[in-house]
């Protein structure tokens, strides 16, 4: 068994001491702590995410495993000494609860000599701003895996710019190649190493981009979110009519369905926000897989989409996003 398999086994058994021992064993045997973070902890976490996505692991197992990896990350970063490189604040964007990727970034930066403050999961932009007023920091790194938080991310971009602190964003929520980070005018790093390299390049960090959100002048994004409640109710009623298994759903399943319907609207709104249909189709592909692994046919997604399409007949840009989604579902 490789250390990686050992580590996964510890996560599966929620064995914190065992997981710490695997990681520490590698470091004691001479492996760089940064490599252990990036080549053991990070891929293991991706594996855990995939197991959850395929319904092989429960949310509880995923949480327990994540908690253990967070402890491991803290142990690995312990003992790193700041070498006067400067100060960086690392945080998860408001609404982002998966703190592990941000924590890995924080520890990698610490190992590279930065003085790092980790503000934790789901940090409201107002808290971040008040922290920036209190501390003179050289940069902020924000993590988010959820595209619907792009508007909040955009607010953070503006707040950091006003405070004149460079900001780096990262995470799946900014698109596969960081394209939505560019749309909101933010610097983007693909991973912890990318963030560390960007921080070492102050000239690049100081360049500012306005982003490309001129399309928001059509007001579709705001108007769409205002109709969120109506849209979800109507789509739920439509599902009741056209998707018979829903009639036998438990309360918890109904809650989950309502949450899914609301998610569709949120991702649709995010696609409208950055004007990229691929944000929406990508989300549908992912959701389709999650639903399929839980016994819900992905085709059932077409029912709410068709309803949304009908209700949003006077939203041209949103309409093209939904059409792209429907076209993908039919393929």
């Amino acid at each position, binding site marked *: 068994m490789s250390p990686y398999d050992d580590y996964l086994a510890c996560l599966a058994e929620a064995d914190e001491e065992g997981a710490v021992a695997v990681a520490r064993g590698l470091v004691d045997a001479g492996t760089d702590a940064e490599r252990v973070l990036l080549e053991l902890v990070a891929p293991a976490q991706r594996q855990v995410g995939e197991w959850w996505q395929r319904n092989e692991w429960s*949310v509880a197992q995923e949480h327990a495993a994540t908690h*253990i990896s967070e402890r491991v990350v803290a142990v690995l970063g312990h003992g790193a000494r700041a070498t006067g490189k400067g100060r960086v604040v690392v945080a998860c964007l408001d609404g982002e609860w998966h703190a592990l990727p941000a924590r890995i970034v924080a520890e990698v930066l610490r190992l590279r000599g930065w003085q790092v403050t980790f503000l934790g999961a789901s940090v409201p932009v107002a808290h971040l701003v*008040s922290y920036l007023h209190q501390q003179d920091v050289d940069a902020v790194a924000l993590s988010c895996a959820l595209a619907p938080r792009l508007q909040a991310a955009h607010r953070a971009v503006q707040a950091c710019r006003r405070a004149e602190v460079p900001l780096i964003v990262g995470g799946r929520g900014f698109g596969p190649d960081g394209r939505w980070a560019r749309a909101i005018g933010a610097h983007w790093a693909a991973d912890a190493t990318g963030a560390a390299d960007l921080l070492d390049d102050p000239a690049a960090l100081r360049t500012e981009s306005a982003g490309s959100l001129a399309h928001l002048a059509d007001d579709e994004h705001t108007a769409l979110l205002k109709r969120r409640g109506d849209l979800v109710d109507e789509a739920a009623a439509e599902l009741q009519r056209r998707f018979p298994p829903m009639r036998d759903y438990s309360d918890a399943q109904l809650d989950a369905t309502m949450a899914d319907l609301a998610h569709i609207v949120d991702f649709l709104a995010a696609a409208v926000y950055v004007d990229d249909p691929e944000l929406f189709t990508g989300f549908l592909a992912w959701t389709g897989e999650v639903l399929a692994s839980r016994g819900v046919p992905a085709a059932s997604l077409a029912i709410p989409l068709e309803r949304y399409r009908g209700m949003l007949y006077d939203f041209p840009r949103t309409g093209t996003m939904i059409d792209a989604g429907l076209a993908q579902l039919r393929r």
Partner: protein
Amino acid sequence: MNAPLGAPDTAAPALVQLLDHLDEGVLLCDDAGIVLYRNPAAARRLPAVAVGGSMPDDLRGRRVELGAGQVAWYLQRASDRASEQANDHATFLAATARRLGGMLNADRVCRATVELAVSSLAGAALLVLPTRRGRARCWHAAGSAPVRQDQVALAALPAAVQDTLDGNPVAQPFLWPGGTPFLGGEATPAAWVVPILAAGAPAAALVVTEVGDLALLEDFAARVGAALEAAQLYAAQSRVAATLQESLLPEPPAPVAGLNWGTAYRPARSTMHIGGDFYGAHPIAGGAMFFLGDVSGKGVDAAVLTGQVRHSLRALRRIEEDPQRLLHVLNDMLLEGVSDGRFATMVLGTAQPRPGGGIRLTLAGGGHLPPLVLRADGTVETVALRGMLVGVTDEPVFGRRSLHLAPGETCLLFTDGVTEARGGHRGAEMYGLRRLTTALAGCAAMPAPALAERVEQLAMDWLGGREHDDIAVFAVRAEPVRTSPRHLHSVHQAATVTVS
């Protein structure tokens, strides 16, 4: 156009009309200074100058040699020049206010001040910010070079700078032998120093070279002073707030062998990040005492009372270890007036690890939501723990329950911020106990910190970013027993370990 323009019929009529309608005055003279032509704007501005007459000596404007001895003068009104310059100044000062207004951090204000100064006001700039014991921090830049930050001894600075920091209120010129490291240029840069006044006193000194406009420099210094004053005030207040906040926030539970604690705390949206929910745990003989509760009211007032309750319990546990009797003592204390009419709901318990694994819990209830127990088989039980509010009546009845947690089982306490969170897709529905117990089924395998965070996340997800009440979660878990210690094969290998 060899013929003098004074004879318009010989020039192209369209060109003459163009000149006639210019706002700028135009004069054409020959090499002897005789005026050959003036357009109407020049006639209005210089009524005494006539075609054929001499050009005035004190003419101010742009002079262009046209060849063949002819000279053209382009005249702007003095007020035009002044208003253009005033416009530039206003633009610069507005940019200064916009840029400095967004930052409430003194260090960044200082850095931006130097950047702004060298961008439009001066060749080089140095800002000196005294700290303590005769030291100062300084930011400086020359031309387009990046701003550098240094430390200096005040005594090493020129007398003019020291005088400015000591209270000289006006801009002073001075020569600075050895000032090159800060200001660049020659060995002895010529500079001006102005005070930066914050809260009426000199907070910093700004030194600049090649300054064109003293009035503009003073206006600039006034705006910097306002920004620095705001930043320093903010820093002072946030230091006080942080200290108070520290004393009002729940403390992390003390580690106790055999027990695994988990907590989550998210007060209602407030700048202070404090609220009326509280929890804590302290070691006692044979285990630990722990509690979670909620005082009536919100914000700072409620937080102050939580601090009193927490500190009281910490002290009282040394003389009374029975949770139910401890609630009575606390009840009397609240009634005696420390609470200003406020009351609390809480669950107070003791946890005693058993020799064979697992823990024995004794819980006392004071009008709080019932605890949940996550059993090893995945079921979630509600502990029937009743009781009256704490701090309302002098003869209260508090509930009491004892139970056993097997290794790996967890008891979960939470405040109504969780169950009364209003959300769902319309934002009007309460989360409720039913949803919580359903979501917790199967969570028994989670370590206590992960479970507490999970509950917080469930509530926050349900809220979907909406306003909420204080939320606190406290979990105590009996350490699970490891049946077979993991055999770690590969970590003992040589230094060339491949990770995956």
